[in-house]
């Protein structure tokens, strides 16, 4: 059904973006949490920067950067022969950049509050750096990951300005739910807009409820 196509697209976008966000943010947040370098504060500030621009404006700059002649899009199209703008890939890149701080910061805080002690203990039990990170730091940072994933996912779902600018609103390709709802509102089709909004809210509510409910069954580690 036509009404549902943006739904799937949005879920796909949010899911892919969240996964990439978590993958990218994990080493970045870890570095930020550990580093004693002065540059860390600079990187921290840069990560949060995209937030202050209005989404459309950020989208505009991303459009420039991702375009065939842009800083990112140029090399990309030279390499792959295809453009980034107005594609799903472009949307993912834009969403990742835009939601980065929502994911990096909770992870960084989680890593900091886990501290070095459990890590040292793991190293003394024959765990490699990587192994220790996976088996100790990740689970101890679970709350941080959940917050990061929830904020990243929902923010990507609701994103509109950036996505519209970078993706256009190509049905089936880049027309995500938020744009679809926007269009319904524009053509005064309030019924569909409500339906989609309420559906979106309900679905998200159920997912979040499940996540938080399960999360609460894990004891907190500080006590």
């Amino acid at each position, binding site marked *: 059904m036509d009404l549902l196509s943006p739904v799937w697209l949005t879920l796909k976008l949010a899911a892919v973006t969240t996964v990439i966000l978590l993958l990218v943010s994990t080493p970045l947040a870890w570095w930020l949490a550990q580093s004693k370098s002065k540059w860390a504060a600079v990187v921290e500030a840069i990560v949060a920067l995209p937030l202050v621009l209005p989404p459309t404006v950020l989208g505009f700059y991303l459009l420039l950067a991702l375009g065939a002649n842009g800083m990112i899009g140029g090399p990309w199209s030279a390499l792959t022969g295809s453009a980034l*703008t107005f594609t799903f890939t472009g949307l993912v890149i834009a969403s990742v950049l835009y939601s980065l701080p929502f994911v990096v910061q909770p992870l960084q805080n989680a890593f900091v509050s886990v501290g070095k002690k459990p890590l040292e203990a793991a190293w003394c039990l024959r765990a490699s750096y990587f192994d220790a990170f996976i088996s100790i730091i990740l689970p101890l940072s679970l709350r941080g990951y959940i917050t990061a994933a929830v904020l990243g996912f929902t923010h990507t779902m609701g994103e509109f300005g950036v996505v519209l600018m970078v993706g*256009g609103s190509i049905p089936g390709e880049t027309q995500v739910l938020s744009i679809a709802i926007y269009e319904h509102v524009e053509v005064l089709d309030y019924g569909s807009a409500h339906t989609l909004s309420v559906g979106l809210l309900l679905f998200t509510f159920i997912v979040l409820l499940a996540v938080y409910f399960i999360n609460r069954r894990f004891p907190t580690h500080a006590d």
Partner: protein
Amino acid sequence: EIRVAVAANFLATLKTLAPLYEQQTGDRLIVSGASSGKLFAQVINGAPYDVFLSADGGYPEQLIQHDKALASSRFVYATGVLVLWSRINQPLDKNSFIAEGINHIAIANPATSPYGAAARQTLIKLGLLDKVKHKLVQGESIGQTFLFVASGNAQLGFVALSQVVNPANPYNQTNYWRVPADYHSPLAQEAVLLQHGKDNVAAKRFLEYLKSDAARNVMAQYGYL
């Protein structure tokens, strides 16, 4: 397959036109709606649109200058009508602005929307701008302006006739004051064939269709001249 970038104010009309056209020709329309400014920026940056239905003449002009559109294809596909509208059933005329109980008057942003600019010109023409200036609230687009009124937060608003008479409009569809055309510069909406679509036969066919009587009829139903 024709990719059409359409100004948001014309989106509703196009959605009515699209199935008619598709049935008639077997072409498929892929419609992307946004503000003209956004669409312009996207086209400049390589958006794969074939046809641009702008809300005014300025953006097509600029696109032609940037060599992103074909000058020869440019034409006025519709002319919008500005109306003063209220959700509540009350007679409206040019004096309604200063009536009791009017706290907010919604207009589209004059800087970004031709309808906003026209509304502003109208107020100047009536010599009321200074009187009502503090009551003005601006919507990003004509769609948002409509919402301000529809939600009851603004008692009056300058919107497009196409919105008011849109069959989907759940609110009062008859109670409006049609602003005389000479109060503002004409709301001529121009269409143009883009570089991306210059070899797309269907795109040309669609532009031609817009000039057809069938299309004009639908547009007229939606309040376009």
